[in-house]
């Protein structure tokens, strides 16, 4: 007895139902890509897990505020994050005002030592499983940062590639070169907004502009940073 498959006939509905569950590889890759993204609502920023992100900018550019927003989003969900504080300038009160859950944050103070900051980041990257590691190089002398071999950044990139960790680097100028997946330069195009008059003024908000250095033709993202006085 011989069995032949008649391809000309229409498959029945049950076969179609099963086939509809099978997704093409391109769609799966697309879904996978978006599951592993951390998006910061209302700012338009989204970062891929397992990648290196470089944010640079001067004073009042909003890089610390964005870093706190990122930590807040992850720590509220119960993820453990780490902060490598190279100059001991971290202010936990600001972090709490931004919504960071301090119970889920590991704080490493490096007292201005560049080498220790990089080694600490290396240990944290190797631990795997952190939601985000924020390597804050703000306040360190730029000439010292320029002396850091670029291979360090490629090492980090390779280490975190297959992990859920986002390595977030902030400094006054871009430091990671082409090792980072996303590089933004933050700036404050206008002046800050103040309320009140005379001696009774309060700093209210600051507009910032975020320009991607990887997408030359894209328009810069814009957002506002607000001051929070609720906790005194």
């Amino acid at each position, binding site marked *: 007895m011989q069995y032949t498959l008649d391809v000309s006939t229409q498959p029945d509905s049950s076969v179609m139902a099963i086939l509809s569950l099978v997704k093409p590889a391109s769609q799966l890759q697309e879904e996978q890509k978006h599951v592993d993204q951390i998006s910061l609502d*209302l*700012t338009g920023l989204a970062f891929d897990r397992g990648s290196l992100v470089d944010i640079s900018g001067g*004073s*009042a*550019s909003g*890089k610390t*505020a964005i*870093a706190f927003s990122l930590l807040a989003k992850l*720590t509220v*969900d*119960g*993820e*453990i*994050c780490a902060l490598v504080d190279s*100059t*001991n*300038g*971290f*202010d*936990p*009160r*600001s*972090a709490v*005002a*931004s*919504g960071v859950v*301090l*119970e*889920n*944050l*590991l*704080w*490493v*103070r490096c*007292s201005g*030592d560049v080498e220790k900051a990089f*080694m*600490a980041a290396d*240990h*944290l990257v*190797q*631990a*795997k*499983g*952190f*939601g985000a590691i924020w390597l804050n190089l703000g*306040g360190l002398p730029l000439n010292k940062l320029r002396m850091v071999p670029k291979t360090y950044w490629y090492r980090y990139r390779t280490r975190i590639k297959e992990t*859920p960790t986002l390595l977030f680097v902030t400094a006054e100028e871009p430091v990671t070169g082409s090792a980072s997946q996303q590089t933004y330069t933050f700036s404050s195009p206008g*002046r*800050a907004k103040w309320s*009140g008059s005379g*001696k009774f003024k309060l*700093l209210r908000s*600051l507009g910032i502009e975020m320009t991607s250095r990887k997408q030359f033709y894209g328009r810069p993202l814009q*957002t*506002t*940073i*607000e*001051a*929070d006085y609720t906790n005194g």
Partner: protein
Amino acid sequence: MGRLFACIISPDLKRDKASLTTVAKEFSYLIETLDDGILFDVSGLDRLIGDRDAISTKILEGLRRHNLAGKIAVAETIDSACLLARQNTVSNTVHSQETFSQLPLSDLPIERDTLNVFNDLGVRKVSDLLSIPHDDLITRYGKDFRNIIDVIEQKSSAILVPNIKENRVHWSYDLDQPVQDFEQLIFLLNHGFEKLFAATRDVGLSSEHLDITFTLKGHQPKNYEIKTSFPTLERSFWLKLVNLRISLDPPEAEIIAVKVTAHFTKPRPSQRGLYAVSRPEPESLLLTVNKLKKLVGEENVGMPVILNRRLAEPFALDSDLLPVGSENIQLEPRLPTLAFTYYRPPQHAEVVYRDGRLVFIRTRYFDGYVCEYSGVWKGSSSWWDKPWKTQEWDVEIENRGIYRLCRANREWFLLGEYD
């Protein structure tokens, strides 16, 4: 000779329980803690020590060695030993078997009415009750009275139920030659941990606390207490952790002996939530934290905490705490909040002010005109202890940024920046 049981009744069991258990362990492994004392099986010790009185005297010596008070009795049944020891006499006394027949009936578990009848009949001691025909007693007071008769005849079938469990296991090793560097002992500790953890696993438990004692040549022994926040029997993890801890505070002389104690605890459930977020493995987190402590100093790694005190900087880094990964109520999406970053140390500044208004600021790194400012914000407290006082301004400098300016001892400083 058949079975023998010893009972020690303590005047303060809560205080002396551990010491009494230690004394009991010198004689037996079958130990039961009672409400008011401790009971243990001393069968067979008659060959080693002597008769009951000799055993009792030996136990009494043990009590004296530990500065303990207690009443001791050794008898063939559990009930007899307990009844004898509970006699209302002074502490540190040994009750012999002969005194059993002189025990008052009120010490036995006899109902009050029955006891009153016996009292009226002049039956007040165990010996009096023994002289009455047992069948008559059972006929009159029921089958349950058989148990009382068994007690006074010292034929009770009560059994000892050991309820003292081991809560730790030890391993020790005397070295043939003194060793200066701890790292040379890692392979030896590995062997010890293997044995310790096998013993721990055999009783279905785990450990989150190790005590390590090094006997040092010509010095006092060095103790290390190493605890984790989770139980684990992973040998490589413990070895790395012990190595890191000891490297932070190495022994000051050559090591001649090692003793390790593993304290038991319940094992960790290994099943996790299906939708649990990603976190570092507890072992990995603890090892990383210890590596970081070794790198930047113990006081520089930990969890930030907000202090409930009025201070100029009311926060601290708690190096004893580790991130826990607790989930919180999801917040509504909101705009980023202006953050502050401290300058360590604060930057010295020169300030020009005109008509009581800040006009120009110059520091080592930049200078510029003041666009806007708010303040002065004054703060002070702790006048009774360590007084502090601050005068601060939030200052926007043209084309530069927003800073916090402060004045102290007639000098100006930039405390930090808003970012």
